[in-house]
């Protein structure tokens, strides 16, 4: 049911839907042959609707990479099924399958001996596109990930920064327009500032692409930011909780999940909810001038920060046209968190995405 919500978010934001649904059904992986071998993944079941980002998050060694690699069959499951649009991946030709699935990894794995352009065009080349079409596609994708084709297509990977390599990695995975992308800690190897920019850009891209994405990270903040759905995994490859980010933060299903998302999960929720989700008080006639103002897409976290910094009990919420439409108070923000239900707009992942792009500007304007 939460999956449905996220599905709507995914479909609603993207027009094209070449995306497929992804389902793990009782998937188990034990390395080694003995029956007692400790399972790396244990009876994993989850459904990701087409067009949604599902994040697998959990401590190191909990089986995230193993789960991801079973989808493109770099690893074969010991038991269970993985279905793409209802078709068991084990029944498909393995090479064909892999060429239809985008794959991005932490170490990027660009081919050092190929130029950036040819790296991007690897899968189109494998599936036999004409040279011209490969080149055109490589240029198109480089532009898409923010690299000027003229300046980058003929470079070799050693001539790129870490962030540029990651972008090329993403472009390469998108080259043949795969309906499903597997991303294993794709932004883990770059510094925090670059990582944040890559995350934002990727979310913006995804709004148009609307791919189905299985995204692995060990970083709960990244999971909250990127995920329409979050699967929290614990040691032994067990699924501890599966749901939209806000639900994981508001209602951790176990002590493990509560510890993993952190004692500050209340504050983290603030990043998921925006001014538009608040129930606003009317603006009092006596309100003093010069109060901070907030656009609808401002995250509550940023609004609270502005209010606390300005030592102001309240600020003015603006509507889409920039007209004042209500009064925002610290108390209202606090009670929004206290409410034992999902934030007003229950848009799950959609909330996160819009929040990610609108806020930088809004918060900047207000301060």
């Amino acid at each position, binding site marked *: 049911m939460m999956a449905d919500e996220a599905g709507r978010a995914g479909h609603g934001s993207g027009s094209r839907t070449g995306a497929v649904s992804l389902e793990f059904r009782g998937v188990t992986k034990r390395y080694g042959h003995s029956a007692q071998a400790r399972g790396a993944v244990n009876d994993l079941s989850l459904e990701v609707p087409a067009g949604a980002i599902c994040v697998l998050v959990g401590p190191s060694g909990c089986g995230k990479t193993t789960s991801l690699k079973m989808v493109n069959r770099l690893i074969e499951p010991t038991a269970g099924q993985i279905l793409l649009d209802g078709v068991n991946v084990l029944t498909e030709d393995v090479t064909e399958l892999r*060429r239809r699935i985008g794959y991005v990894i932490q170490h990027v*794995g660009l*081919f050092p001996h190929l*130029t950036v352009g040819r790296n991007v065009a690897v899968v189109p080349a*494998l599936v036999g596109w004409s040279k011209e079409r490969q080149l055109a596609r490589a240029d198109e994708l480089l532009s898409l990930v923010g690299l000027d084709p003229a300046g980058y297509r003929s470079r070799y990977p*050693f001539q790129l920064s870490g962030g540029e390599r990651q972008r090329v990695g993403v472009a*390469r995975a998108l080259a043949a327009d795969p309906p499903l992308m*597997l991303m294993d800690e794709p932004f883990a190897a770059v510094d925090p500032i670059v990582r944040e920019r890559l995350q934002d850009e990727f979310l913006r891209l995804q709004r148009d692409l609307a791919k189905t994405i299985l995204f692995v990270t060990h970083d709960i903040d990244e999971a909250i930011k990127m995920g329409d759905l979050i699967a929290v995994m614990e040691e032994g490859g067990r699924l501890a909780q599966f749901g939209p980010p806000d639900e994981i933060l508001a209602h951790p299903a176990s002590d493990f999940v509560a510890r993993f998302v952190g004692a500050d999960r209340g504050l983290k929720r603030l990043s998921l909810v925006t001014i538009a989700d608040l129930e606003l008080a009317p603006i009092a006639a006596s309100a003093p001038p010069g109060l901070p103002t907030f656009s609808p897409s401002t995250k509550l976290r940023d609004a609270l920060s502005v209010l606390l910094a300005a030592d102001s009990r309240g600020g003015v919420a603006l509507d889409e046209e920039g007209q004042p439409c209500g009064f925002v108070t610290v108390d209202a923000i606090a009670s929004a968190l206290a409410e034992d239900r999902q934030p007003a707009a229950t848009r799950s992942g959609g909330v996160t995405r819009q929040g990610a792009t609108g806020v930088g500007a809004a918060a900047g304007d207000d301060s």
Partner: protein
Amino acid sequence: MSGEPLIRWDWLFAHLGPIAERVGQHLYLAAIAVSVGFAISFALAALSIRRRKLYPFVTVLATAAYTIPSFAMFAALVAITGLSVFTAEIPLVLYTIVLFVPNIVAGFDSVPWDVLDAADGMGYTPGQRWWRVELPLAVPLVVAGLRLASVSTIGLVTVSAILGDSFGGLGYYILDGYKRHFTTEILVGGLLSIGLAVIADLGFVLLQRLLTPWAARRTVGG
């Protein structure tokens, strides 16, 4: 010795034709040894990579062969293969193996695991992965092996002069000069042999640059 100049240029100019022929023979003997040695070594390296347990045995055998003095090996082989080209080539080929195999194995080992993982994930078939990813990325170390083996072999070819006039390349002049106490001949044979080794080495460096424009070099900023 007293009035004799170090090099008798008149002798040199009178023998340009035969010297050129010896250079040709020298290159021919070396090229055969390096090519055959490379082919055998490539097979041994491929085997060692697949069956890692075999690698120490291959290394030990190749090193053992390398410890046999060339002089002794040429002499011993005369009893078996006579004064044929095999007698000259077998030792030369054997000596290259210890230089080639570790470099070829290291070349394939040097291919980063994340690149292989990406290649598999992108949908390269095993054959495509080998030809289009592993082999090109192994090139720098394979060529390093070629440089070593060719320099070493070009030097060793001279020793095969002990098998007689139809062997040895430039080594013929070294041996002949030694027998006749004729310094010019020794110098011509020795220096030209060194020159060939240097040229071969530079040639492979050039080849490597052409084959691996992608390799980071100090002269190019990252």
